[in-house]
């Protein structure tokens, strides 16, 4: 089976700082893969290069074998990559359903259409997507008054609008209560199972990562130090060094291993 996403030697520098330094990996179809690492490791930077928000200093990104390096986000989205952000960017002045409808309007290339009422377009499709994330009952509420956890679920529904082959989720559970986190990750892994999409996500909650991810990659100071299954990664001495040595995270989790 060939990889959905293939990254070769990705590098990005800011001034003199190497935020991402020669990262290579693959994501397989139907795979739920995690990218973890301490704060400032370069996870968001990496994501921004995959989706085109940032241009890599060097390196290549392939989607289904096609080179998409340096293409703008909207072009990459058209090729079937959905994305959620660490800081949500939903349309505050629209309702929940309209947020999804907006993505559907773009997907069906109706952005410049001037005749129909937008709020009526693709509403059923939008409701179906909202149903997937359990937000259908809030479809007609203004986005501005949603709880944070609901916003995150909404973002997921929006990201599914173009029927993506690959979903990139940057810290999907950041800022959520522990119980909500588990629910959201459960939801994500259901989506992976039911729709056959691949998901690459970053996360700092180890419980979430080890419970759901098929494979885990560890990024430290811009370099990938591990890429494998949960057990391998846990036992990787370099990884233990980073987490124990750095003292930042989850000694408990690693000690359990």
């Amino acid at each position, binding site marked *: 089976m060939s990889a959905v996403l293939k990254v070769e030697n990705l590098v990005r520098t800011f001034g003199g700082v190497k935020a991402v330094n020669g990262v290579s990996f693959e994501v397989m179809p139907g795979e739920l893969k995690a990218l973890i690492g301490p704060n400032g490791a370069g996870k968001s930077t990496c994501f921004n290069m995959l989706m085109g928000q940032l241009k890599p200093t060097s390196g290549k990104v392939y989607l289904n074998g096609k080179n998409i390096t340096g293409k703008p986000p909207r072009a990459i*989205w058209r090729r079937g990559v959905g994305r959620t952000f660490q800081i949500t960017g939903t*349309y505050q002045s*629209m309702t929940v359903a309209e947020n999804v409808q907006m*993505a559907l309007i773009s997907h069906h290339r109706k952005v410049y259409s001037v005749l129909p009422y937008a709020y009526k377009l693709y509403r059923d499709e939008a409701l179906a997507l909202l149903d997937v994330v359990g937000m259908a009952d809030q479809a007609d509420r203004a*986005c501005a008054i949603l709880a944070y956890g609901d916003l995150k679920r909404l973002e997921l529904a929006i990201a599914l609008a173009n029927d993506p082959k690959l979903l990139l989720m940057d810290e999907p559970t950041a800022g959520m209560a522990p119980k909500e986190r588990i629910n959201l990750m459960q939801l994500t892994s259901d989506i992976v199972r039911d729709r056959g999409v691949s998901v690459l996500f970053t996360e700092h909650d180890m419980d979430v990562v080890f419970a759901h991810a098929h494979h885990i990659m560890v990024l430290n100071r811009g370099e990938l130090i591990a890429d494998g299954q949960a057990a391998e990664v846990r036992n990787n001495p370099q990884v233990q060094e980073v987490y124990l040595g750095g003292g930042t995270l989850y000694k408990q989790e690693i000690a359990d291993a």
Partner: protein
Amino acid sequence: MGFFVAQLLTGLANAAALFLVASGLSLIFGVTRIVNFAHGSLYMLGAYFGITLMNILPGAFGFWGSIVLSGLIVGLIGVIIEMFVLRPVYRAPELFQLVATFGVILVIQDLALLIWGAEDQLGPRAPGLKSVVRILGEPVPQYDLALIAITPFILLGLWWLIAKTRIGILVRAATQDREMVGALGVNQSWLFTGVFFLGSALAGLGGAIQLPKGGADLLMDLNIISAVFVVVVIGGMGSIPGAFVASVLISVLNVFGVSYIPQSTLVLMYVVMAVVLLIRPYGLFGREEKAGEHGQVGEPDRPIRPAGLVGRSFVAVLLIGLAAVPFLFSNFSQVLITDIIIACLFAASLQFILSTGGLVSFGHAAYFGGGAYAAALLVSYTETPMELAFLFAPLAAGLLAIVFGWFCIRLSGVYFAMLTLAFSQLIWSLVFQWYDLTGGDDGLVNIWPSEWLSGTTTYYYFTLIVGVGGIILLRHLNHAPLGYTLRATRDSARQAEATGINVNVVQWTAFAVAGALAGLAGGLFVFSKGSIFPNELEIGKSFDALIVVFLGGVKTLSGGVVGAAFMETIKDWLTRLEYWRLILGLVIIGVVIIAPDGIVGSLRKVSEKIGLRRTEEFMK
């Protein structure tokens, strides 16, 4: 050769005042991220205070002392403005601050009129520097040489202040990284006040120091502000060296322009600016502006829905009422309502990009006047039938918006605002100076509608149909996918880009649509009046539109129309008052600070509060 040198020296001397004002504006912007539109007014105050003081204080000491004192006084006035007008709106989006400072312009205009009268005042000449020096045979005023000598010291002084003092460190820190000021343990509001003092004082100095070359009059505030904008846009916002280089460039260019191509001096300035921005979008020394430096004020806009049965019935009744006007009222009221409808269409077209698109255009008059002139020129020169010429108005305005939009859309926030303003000034100066084609100040006359449309009542119905049609079209666009997409780009450009939307092209399209509909309003206007003059392209015209949208409510769909109808109705009465600018200015400032929701937004809130109107479904 001698002539050339003399010209160069005049240009350099003219640069002094321009640099002082521009560096003040730039400094204030760098630290507070506020574009002080009233900066030209501070310059004007500097000139008036200068004259008053020079008449009291004798001799050379009195002369130079007056200049310094004027600077200090104007600095203090700047502090008052900062504390009472701007402090309450620092966290608001640019638009609110720009409109607030525009209110200040109006207030200062009338206060100056009140204190110094309407007469232009001649500036006294500098004691000891009253004669001319011959350089290569050409006479050069001594005072010009003095100015040329002084300017580098001012630049040096500012440089020293910013590079070498603690205040300067704070200013630089704030300019580069707004978060850092807090980290340095400084009271941010005092830093802002201090910078406002300094920047305002520089404008006041500029006004006073140019007195022997110019004088003081009530138009100098708006006259200098567009030149100052050109200077800071070319030099780069927030950059003092940039302000210096650009002031010299523009002043020298102007002087040579006057001698060699007197018909296009003003145009030249804007062409240079456009060229610089093409190569360096943030000016010669500017930094890229980070989006979202300003937050949202208050609650976000609410979701929208097409009007329900009640709303539509109300509009239907209103339209029937308007259609009945010729049967019930005089010609005078038909003319008044024709004016009102045109103003409403113009405001609605601005609101489309301003509110729905978040694009703060400060030069929307270019498309209104541009459309009107396009039609008028066709009629005047080619005897095109009125019907065709009328259709040409929105077409030409739309094309103009496509061209200007291409430059402007790539920028955002205050850069966008200033660039749109500068482009509208470009059109204004073209029309104003190209006398042979446009008649300059004399305008174009005898532009009447065809036989079947002439007569007050007939044209009234024509305006009613076309104007209301345009307004309804705009309203529908807000609800159509294009309008939704535009709103999406405003709410979150990043999210829009990440879901396949080309933000720039969508905004550009909307800009063109708004331009075309402003042009439609301009077409209605020119045939209703039978003439067109350059004042329909002035800064004031663009501001009128901004202000009515603001009064009506930026965060509503109907704010522009309601605000324009309101303003146009009371204008006749208002402008008959002696100090109407003062009143209007204070009202604008009051609305910005106290009732930022405007008429429609406030009414909506009040009626929800007292239970006249149900809270909308989506707000529960």
